């Protein structure tokens, strides 16, 4: 009998600081309407200097896991393009600080914004294959943050965050059931956006957008080849797209509607997008670019804010990673999806973030940049207004204590 595999739980860590886009627009003399209406970003997440891809990954997953989960997890995959080491994987720290049992395969993967989806697909295949022991679970985490981008044209689409996804095989997945085999992949080598060193994030965003749209067309065409002809509008009750910025979901949805439906006028496309896609941007608008976490963040926003959502609805999900590899796959909303999303408490976490000024943000980004790949680092805990005491002390969050001769030392707050 084919096993059913899906997402049991999902939790996102939106960092503890946030920057208002109106303030950034004022500082950069940029039209706020472009950022709110075109890019669809209202705020972005910012990390204090004592957080990195390791702490975000752990802080995303830790509150979500039970002792039973820690004993059952036998696979941990962490996707990132913001790793802190070229040899030692983030997953090794994740395994340690989450207290997962020792017989656990763990590794880190990289494929730009595709890595989270690549991890989920590999974990799903493992769980469905019969190779995974009965009752075994898989934890997939994507953890990323933008590198310093002060004054760059793409500064408005930067962000940070981590998404933790717990997958298992069960008769009825709680949050989301992956439709096994219903997937179309499209790969095409391109150098669009990339990180040639740990301190440099560069490339051409226009090249990347062309590549994204080409990959969307290629991946969906492949999906149809695999699954068979479907009525796009009737088959998918919801659609989620990788969002380097929220506005890209509108462009992506429009491209598929124009090619596969009779819905072509700007007004009709907009109404269709508003109904099937817009709820998925609820958190993206508040957090900004989250790289490989973006489709999972979108799923959480969709489930939590789409009032007419019904379990069993099919979601078409598109993931794109620069470089490039893309995938269009489908899944069904689980029976307990709303409860899982509510338990993740993401709105509460977003609301609890400390708003920071542009000057504070710039100082943090400079400090992080100088600390990246440095031999010795002691993040300043008192960088402003007692943030550590307010946001961390006694809250059991993992923080970077220091880097000493390249050895990274973490501790619980």
């Amino acid at each position, binding site marked *: 009998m084919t096993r059913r595999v899906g997402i049991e739980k999902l939790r996102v860590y939106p960092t503890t600081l946030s920057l208002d886009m109106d303030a950034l627009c004022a500082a950069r003399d940029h039209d706020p309407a*472009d950022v709110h209406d*075109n890019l669809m970003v209202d705020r972005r997440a910012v990390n204090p200097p004592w957080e990195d891809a390791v702490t975000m990954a752990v802080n995303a997953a830790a509150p979500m896991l039970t002792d039973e989960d820690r004993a059952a997890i036998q696979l941990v995959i962490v996707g990132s393009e913001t790793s802190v080491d070229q040899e030692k994987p983030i997953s090794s720290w994740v395994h340690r600080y989450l207290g997962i049992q020792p017989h656990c395969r763990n590794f880190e993967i990289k494929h730009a914004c595709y890595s989270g989806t690549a991890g989920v697909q590999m974990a799903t295949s493992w769980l469905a294959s019969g190779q995974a022991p009965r009752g075994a679970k898989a934890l997939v985490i994507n953890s990323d943050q933008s590198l310093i981008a002060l004054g760059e044209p793409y500064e408005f689409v930067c962000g940070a965050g981590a998404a933790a996804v717990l997958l298992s095989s069960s008769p009825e997945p709680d949050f989301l059931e992956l439709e096994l085999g219903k997937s179309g992949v499209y790969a095409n080598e391109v150098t669009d956006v990339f990180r040639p060193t740990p301190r440099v994030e560069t490339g*051409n965003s*226009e*090249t990347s*957008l*062309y590549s994204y*749209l*080409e990959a969307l*067309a290629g991946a969906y065409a492949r999906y149809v080849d695999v699954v068979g002809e479907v009525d796009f509008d009737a088959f998918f009750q919801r659609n989620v797209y990788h969002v380097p910025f929220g*506005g890209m979901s509108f*462009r992506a949805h*429009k*491209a598929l509607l*124009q*090619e596969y439906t009779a819905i*072509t*006028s*700007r007004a009709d*496309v907009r109404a269709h997008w508003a109904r099937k896609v817009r709820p998925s941007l609820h958190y993206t608008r508040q957090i900004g670019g989250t790289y490989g976490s973006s489709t999972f963040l979108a799923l959480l926003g969709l489930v939590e804010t789409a009032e007419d959502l019904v379990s069993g609805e099919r979601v078409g999900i598109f993931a794109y990673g620069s470089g490039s590899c893309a995938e269009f796959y489908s899944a069904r909303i689980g029976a307990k999806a709303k409860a899982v999303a509510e338990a993740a408490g993401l709105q509460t976490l977003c609301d609890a973030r400390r708003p920071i000024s542009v000057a504070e943000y710039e100082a943090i980004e400079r400090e992080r940049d100088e600390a990246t790949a440095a031999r010795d680092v002691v993040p300043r805990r008192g960088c402003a207004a007692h943030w550590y005491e307010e946001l961390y002390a006694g809250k059991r969050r993992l923080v970077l204590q220091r880097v000493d001769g390249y050895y990274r030392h973490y501790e619980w707050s």
Partner: protein
Amino acid sequence: MTHEQVTSVIIKHLVRSIDELTPETVDVKKSMKDYGANSLDIVEVVSASMRELKVKVPRAELATITNIDGLATVLLRVWNEKQAAAPNGAG
């Protein structure tokens, strides 16, 4: 495929991206920016046109184009090159 047919494909997608623009009012000597298209709109129109015509133009070449007529010229040239390269001219 004629230059006019390629132009009409571009205009069709441009009209779908810009509010209150009709095909009759589009002057091909103008840039899409003249009609209020932002960089995302232009990527969308060019992508949709390439997809419909089943051609792919390198971004570096696209960056040199200054108006709608110029885009039509490049798309048609690439379309013709593809036809010439295809076995039996089957595209």
